[in-house]
């Protein structure tokens, strides 16, 4: 009864096609936005803002990028981190070499560079599918990281390979504190999530899903296979590229190839599997889970060792983390392939009737 749609009539297709057709959802969404933009920066401490919430948003953006490619267009990629790396390094170079450009245009250009790289590594998708393609995307992962380390231009010939990201300055205003960086990240992520939602509910998104569900039928009804697949790679890589730039500028503060290893690619894949394949909200839920869970595990191991009086080493905790992540992936694939997003939907359907079962 709490979550009731009765009495809400839609009198136009525009209303029916809104992002949140139900009033409750709209209210919940705006409350969430208000909390994220106003309450969190006011009450959040440094640690929460800079070590949890900002990376959460950035990973959510990368997961969203991967979800566009894998969840919507059905092309599995294991090279997400490489596209993030392109974004991070190109943003650094744009800011360094064309300082008059400003941060935001630099990020956009960096994203476009990632998109271009994505298109190149998406070309095999025109001939191969499934895990053949997944293996092919590994080529991106290895080649891009190799190139970034090998060619000094990318790192501005820095000797250590680790470069400090420039300060974020937009129109003379410097984003220095964790709260400022958090707000900037939040704004960018929110806008890009909205754009992704719009895309996925219009023709482009439908073409992606059609290719995912049955490519032969899609081409018979006139959906151009090449354009659709490459566009999916481009858009997805753009999102990952911007996420990579944010990762370097708003989170790490450094630009280094090691941050974008295969391990990160897997982590982001896990986010969408656990959060929900083919769901924008799922990308956020999955990123939240994967970001928070290790922190929770560390806390829990602290309690356990305190309670039992045994020392639990850091290595043990990180091995446990591997096991639990892996186990959860298998669990979700078996029990709920659509992840948290689907569980949330089921919960909402239950709430429509609650507390009356029928």
């Amino acid at each position, binding site marked *: 009864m709490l979550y009731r749609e009765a009495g809400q009539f839609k009198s136009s297709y525009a209303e029916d096609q809104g992002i949140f057709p139900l009033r409750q959802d709209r209210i919940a969404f705006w409350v969430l936005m208000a909390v994220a933009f106003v309450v969190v920066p006011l009450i959040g401490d440094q640690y929460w803002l800079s070590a949890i919430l900002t990376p959460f948003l950035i990973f959510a953006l990368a997961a969203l990028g991967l979800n566009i490619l894998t969840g919507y267009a059905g092309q599995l990629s294991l090279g997400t981190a490489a596209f993030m790396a392109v974004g991070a390094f190109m943003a650094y170079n744009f800011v360094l070499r064309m300082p008059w450009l400003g941060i935001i245009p630099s990020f956009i250009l960096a994203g476009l560079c990632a998109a271009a790289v994505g298109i190149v590594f998406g070309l095999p998708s025109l001939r191969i599918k499934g895990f053949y393609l*997944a293996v092919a995307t590994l080529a991106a992962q290895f080649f891009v990281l*190799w190139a970034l380390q090998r060619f000094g231009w990318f790192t501005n010939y820095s000797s250590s390979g680790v470069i400090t990201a420039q300060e974020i300055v937009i129109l003379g205003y410097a984003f220095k504190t964790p709260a400022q960086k958090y707000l900037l990240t939040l704004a960018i992520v929110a806008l890009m999530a909205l754009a992704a939602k719009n895309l996925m509910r219009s023709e482009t998104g439908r073409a992606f899903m059609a290719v995912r569900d049955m490519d032969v039928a899609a081409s018979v009804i006139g959906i151009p296979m090449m354009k659709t697949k490459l566009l999916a790679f481009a858009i997805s890589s753009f999102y990952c590229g911007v996420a990579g730039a944010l990762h370097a500028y708003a989170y790490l503060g450094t630009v280094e190839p090691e941050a974008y290893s295969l391990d990160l690619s897997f982590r982001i894949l896990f986010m969408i599997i656990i959060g929900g394949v083919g769901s924008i909200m799922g990308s956020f839920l999955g990123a939240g889970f994967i970001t928070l869970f290790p922190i929770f595990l560390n806390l829990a191991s602290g309690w356990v060792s305190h309670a039992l009086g045994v020392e639990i080493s850091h290595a043990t905790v990180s091995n446990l983390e591997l*096991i639990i992540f*892996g186990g959860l*992936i298998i669990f979700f694939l*078996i029990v709920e*392939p659509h992840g948290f997003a689907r569980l949330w939907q089921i919960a909402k359907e239950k709430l429509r009737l609650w507390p009356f079962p029928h």
Partner: protein
Amino acid sequence: MSEVIFFFEVLAGGLLAGVMYALVALGFVLIYKASGVFNFAQGAMVFFAALTFVSLTERGWNFWLALVVTLAVMVLLGIVTERVVLRPLVNQPQITLFMATIGLTFVLEGLSQLIWGSQPHGLELGIPDVPMEWLSQKWNVNISQFDLFSAFVAGGLVAVLAVFFHRTRIGRALRAVADDHQAALAVGIPLQHIWAIVWAVAGFVALVAGLLWGVRNGVQFALTFVALKALPVLILGGFESIMGAIVGGLIIGASEKLAEVYVGPFVGGGIESWFAYVVALVFLLFRPEGLFGEKIIDRV
């Protein structure tokens, strides 16, 4: 003259490295043939097997006892995987199973290090990794004794597997299952047993690969990455062909070494990390089904 000899030395080194790749690729092919599962966890299985073996011997176990116990552990792992991961996912899309094996990879990596610790181990099988004397004296060619040994082991393994697949009842059942799950079920071949067996066999292959790779690079976490080396081999050779795994491995091994020596210097070296993938990708553009794979026809 010395340049020619050098070329052949590089080529031979590459081919022998290719044998090692093929050994890992073989594990993938076995499982794919029988169950259509692309088992990303093969690399983690190699690591798990090698680490278990080396940890047992370091605790003073006899070589053969450690070998048998490790093999038993791998068989058990195969059975558990079948029960817990594969059986609930039967009839799911291949890509789902693939992602499940990525999950399995993480579980195995965590588990091996949780049980045995994460410090690297050296491994010694009694065959020194030094150039063969008479070859270097007579022809001035340097080829490692251990590399040759590995090649023999790999060759022997392939022969044993070929006999197993073509001459034994279980082998025939395996091939029947690979051709058509439904039909195999219909004639009374118990799918679950077959899958458990094939995972156990793949575990055995992983053990052999793990030992050989362990001698070469030490038994450490980086062993899991040998699987990443085997993937281009699979693309090249096709997922379903044992022959393809061998030939693909040799091609990748040889071209990688040759490229590293002759092309590497011009681009700053280190191209081994991706060159195999690029070879495989270029190859894919012309023959998406691999060297020995079957042509896929889309039907409507």
